[in-house]
């Protein structure tokens, strides 16, 4: 009996700690995903136009570097 009770008690304690673990894991995930979204937004904000320029300068036929700046 006692041996049956203690595993149940342990299960409950296990479940309780698992639930709190899950909650803190979810909170961690949310914090990390918010941090990741903020970093992604900053990277996109600064890097999108340079990305287009790099892709464009490497496409065929390759334009020259001076053509980027001259108005002709």
């Amino acid at each position: 009996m006692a041996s049956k009770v203690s595993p149940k008690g342990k299960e409950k304690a296990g479940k309780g700690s698992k639930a709190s673990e899950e909650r803190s894991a979810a909170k961690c995930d949310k914090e990390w995903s918010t941090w990741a979204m903020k970093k992604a937004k900053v990277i996109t904000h600064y890097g999108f136009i340079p990305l287009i320029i790099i892709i464009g300068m490497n496409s065929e036929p390759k334009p020259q570097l001076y053509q980027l700046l001259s108005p002709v």
Partner: protein
Amino acid sequence: MGSSVSHAAAPPPTAVGLAVALPPKQDEKAEPKNVDWLNLPCPVPFEEIQREASMSLKPELFEGLKFDFTKGLNQRFSLSHSIFMGSMELPSQSSDTFKVPTAHYEFGANFLDPKLMLVGRVLTDGRLNARVKCDLTDNLTLKINAQLTNEPHFSQGMFNFDYKGTDYRTQFQIGNNAFYGANYIQSISPHLSLGTEIFWLGHQRKSGIGFAARYNTDKIVATGQVASTGTVALSYVQKVSEKVSLASDFMYNHLTQDVTSSFGYDYILRQCRLRGKLDSNGVVAAFLEERLNMGVNFILSAEVDHRKKDYKFGFGMTVGE
């Protein structure tokens, strides 16, 4: 002299004999078309269901000076510089309109490939407009649309997944502020297509559903849209000739009891495109794009709001393709 002229312009073949007397055969009316119900054409995308009416009735009116210069480095890659000097309206309590002069310079880069399109525009105040369109497979397209600002919580982004079937199209949208939307449009007959859309706004717990129908032939396009947000929008465009089309539009919002109706014309001539419209709110507008030379366009925009006694006149030039 005379011989060179006759070589330059070959005379058109003249009709001979009985063909001159009889009227030309009217093929469209005489032949009854057999409808192939298994091979209906693909409908237009759901957001472009009122495309003809929007193009004719809602030109990009502006106030002030606008100068656009597009420089192509490559067949696919181009840079654009744009200057705008105009005024911005400030909201005011009284009936007067307050305008504040604003000016900005916008730098843009475009990469246009059949499979991948990247368009980016950045303004002097740090705002970025980004558009990406990528063909993942033959039928599946990913579109991303984003406006990023330096101020926090003002940025917007939207992801669209489009799937094109044989006679239907479907789209799934994910946006910021937990916006989810989906729409579906199906061709019912060679001329008629019906569509539906639903959306869900997470943060405000709002959802809505809408239905749309589009009937188009060579000469007319008629559309109707009803949404659970209480809006009814109808439009009708008639192509009077190759160069002229007339459009009319009716919008009714049940919740705000707002009714707007507008009529407009669209002249597409060889050297210019002239669009004008008249509104039930007392707004008269016109927009002219004149092609001065290859790649040089001159733009005039005018809008007079008789009810608010507000005038907006703009002029500009677009250089480059």
